[in-house]
């Protein structure tokens, strides 16, 4: 029986180590009925690990878990156990089966019935999908849905379960604002019904919008549990980082802007890829930071992928420094000094089983050529340099990248591209899943690189982040470039207006 009054869940003195890492070190956590409890911490603080210990994905080294209605500590050995005990979870990486239909993904592994009643299941699923406004059909194969839809399906599944504890590990990282609103509505409903919700996110706004309590972790240790009113933003950030965050408002400094000649590094005309965007024109100047903005699915990623030739280019010309170049495959782009950090880290970014070191040197190595491998010493030097520079939390450079926390994986990929010393760096959602401290670091880094003459394209779902870093914004709608904003036009309202289609055109 949980010790605390009206607690549905209590975790006591949880320890968990991985080879070389102490991920959780005596963490206590308690969740009350009808509260939304934010779990906060830097990348690699141990949030996901805590959750996976709770749901039986990992076996804990030590500690006890108590649930309301159970006299003794409960033994949770598998997610199935957790589900049966009324704990439903949306994990950080989407964990659904791509080969099944949407409806099956919502209902598989649940319920007592031994048979699958397709008609009923599809009807139920369709109703839920419609209620939540998810643009998918129950009988559609999941892999045919976009990431955002898949994320929503995962949420729909978790929410639909008759649960006492709901866990959401960064569910909002690939959702747009309206979808986030919908999710919050749901969460509030459930709270009203007495469900305890654990909510992990790196968006502070969202925390203050829906949460009641905050538990902060740092380096696998518990920092403390706070009621939301007692912990203003700045203090929260300080607790998370273990230090004050210096000036997060104004980092764009006119004086530090690149002052070199005003030349266009990359210029594309009528570019079109087979991923389904309309032909577009685009240029970027030396030392400039620009961004693509638009709603989810508006084609921002497809645009930059076309520039990098990550998708098959079907039409258009590319000029580099005024000279026409032929870019038909990623290697061509890399040779022309373009680097691309993809948005789907798991699928397009990391090479899971390879070490952090190999992941860092990969692109530079490919550029250097098949017959000229880096020596061990060189590789180590590069790896150590960037692990330090970007403060990547890893047991060693030999650790396989897949055992890093999400945010740290992202940093490794960033390091990979920085190592190629590109002239033009494309960052597609580089801060997705990144903690607030690192986010600022990355933004600063981008601006610093730009001031040294690198051109950067920065894509983010957070408009204020874009406004802080970019000096020019390309606006997209329905897979078409519909406008461009710069200088004074760079305000939240103006951007929104353009995206919605009120302004220019």
């Amino acid at each position: 029986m949980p010790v605390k009054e009206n607690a549905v869940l209590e975790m006591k003195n949880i320890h968990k180590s991985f080879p070389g890492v102490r991920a959780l070190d005596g963490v206590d956590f308690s969740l009350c009925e009808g509260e939304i409890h934010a779990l906060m911490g830097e990348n690699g603080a141990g949030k996901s690990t805590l959750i996976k210990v709770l749901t039986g994905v990992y076996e804990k080294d030590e500690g006890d878990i108590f649930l309301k209605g159970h006299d003794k500590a409960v033994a949770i050995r598998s997610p199935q156990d957790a589900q049966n005990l009324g704990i439903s979870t949306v994990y950080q990486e989407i964990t659904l089966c791509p080969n099944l239909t949407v409806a099956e993904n919502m209902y598989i592994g649940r319920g007592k019935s031994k048979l699958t009643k397709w008609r009923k299941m599809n009807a139920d699923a369709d109703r839920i999908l419609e209620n939540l406004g998810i643009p998918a059909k129950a009988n559609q194969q999941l892999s045919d849905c976009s990431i955002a839809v898949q994320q929503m399906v995962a949420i729909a599944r978790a929410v639909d379960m008759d649960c006492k504890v709901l866990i959401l590990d960064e569910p909002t990282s690939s959702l747009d604002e309206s979808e986030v609103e919908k999710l919050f509505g749901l969460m509030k409903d459930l709270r009203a019904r007495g469900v305890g919700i654990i909510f992990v996110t790196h968006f502070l706004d969202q925390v203050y919008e829906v949460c009641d309590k905050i538990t902060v972790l740092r380096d696998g240790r518990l920092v403390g549990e706070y009621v939301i009113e007692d912990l203003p933003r700045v203090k929260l950030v300080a607790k998370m980082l273990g230090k004050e965050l210096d000036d997060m408002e104004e980092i764009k400094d006119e004086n530090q802007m690149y002052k070199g000649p005003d030349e266009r590094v990359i210029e594309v005309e009528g570019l079109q890829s087979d991923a389904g965007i309309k032909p577009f024109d685009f240029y970027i100047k030396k030392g400039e930071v620009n961004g693509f903005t638009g709603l989810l699915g508006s084609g921002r990623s497809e645009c930059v992928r076309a520039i990098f030739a990550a998708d098959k280019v079907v039409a258009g010309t590319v000029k580099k420094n005024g000279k026409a170049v032929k870019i038909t495959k990623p290697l061509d782009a890399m040779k022309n000094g373009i680097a691309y950090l993809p948005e789907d880290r798991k699928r397009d970014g990391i090479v899971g089983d390879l070490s952090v070191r190999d992941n860092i040197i990969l692109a530079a190595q490919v550029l250097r050529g098949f017959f000229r491998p880096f020596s061990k010493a060189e590789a180590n030097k590069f790896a150590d340099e960037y692990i330090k520079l970007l403060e990547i939390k890893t047991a060693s450079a030999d650790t396989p990248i897949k055992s890093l926390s999400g945010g740290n994986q992202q940093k490794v990929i960033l390091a990979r591209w920085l190592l190629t010393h590109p002239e033009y760096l494309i960052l597609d959602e580089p801060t997705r899943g990144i903690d607030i401290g690192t986010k600022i670091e990355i933004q600063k880094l981008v601006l610093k690189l730009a001031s040294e003459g690198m051109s950067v394209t920065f894509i983010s779902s957070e408009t204020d982040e874009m406004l802080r870093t970019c000096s020019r914004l390309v606006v997209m709608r329905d897979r078409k470039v519909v406008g461009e904003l710069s200088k004074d036009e760079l305000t939240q309202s103006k951007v929104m207006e353009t995206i919605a289609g009120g302004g220019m055109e």
Partner: protein
Amino acid sequence: MAKKNTAAGNAAAGRKKLTESNLLLLITVVIFVVMYAGAMVFLQKGFLKPQTFFNILNANAALIITACGMSLVMITGGIDISVGGVVALVSMCCAVYLDYMGGNVFVSLLIALGIGLAFGVVQGYLVAYLDIQPFIVSLAGMFFARGMTTIVHTAPFNVENETFVALKNTRIYVPGMGTVNKLGKYVPAYVEIGVIIALLVVVVLFCALKWTKAGRNFYAVGGNRQSALMLGINVKRTRFLAQLLCGVLAGIGGYVYFLHVGSGSASHASGMEMNAIASSIIGGTLLTGGVGNIFGTFVGVLSLSTIQNIVSSIGLDQAWWTGITVAAMLCIFLIIQSVILRRRQ
């Protein structure tokens, strides 16, 4: 905007309604029908007789059963290459039991099931609970079964047990399907008992995969094992079950094979595992797991042996053409499948 998005989404859903499994099944069925019809039109000869088709069934009843088992493990992302060996071992053990130990037919059936079960349990445990690569486990299984077969008895021999022979010679006539042979005699078309068992297996497994929770779990585990675990599926048990069923089906298949040939021999069913895998794949099951259909496997077996029948009917004059032609047709088949799958994506 949102509305438009939904509409587009729906359109996409409509266009891509076929899941991968169903698309692959469709390809297989179409190619099979075209191939068989082509053989009937251009080769004629025996292909016009229904018995040719039933002979394909008779000869492949055991393969159908083992291939179904293979499909099950393949759907969960595993593989079992021990099935051929198990079939041989089952035939040999049953033959020895019936002939040298004067056993009865019913017990011999239990022996077959027992052997299949034993292989299924051991291999299943190693694969699912100790997480050893299925290929290696079942490779060892194959070695073991083949070796054991010769240890049990070396030389091949016919079984003379009367009940068994009667059972083996039982023919189930298909009404209205006979033909008049060249002696002017009407010969009714027939199938053997094994075919009935095979068809039963196909129907039962088809339904089980489609409509039971356990069946759907197979697909989930094959699609993404990690995700399946997180979705609350008992992955270990599911994998164990698949491997177990495959073993049991190999046992049943072994008995059906034994009923068809009526003898024990160490060389029985050699290469059957490859035929089972090929049939499954032709039938639209992917080795990578998560995609497949038992009915497809059934059609896959038919396709494969129709290919072989066509080749032997063409009457190629040199021995090497047999292998080369079968391979070429297999190649075309796989390429068509691959191209259509690619088009879809």
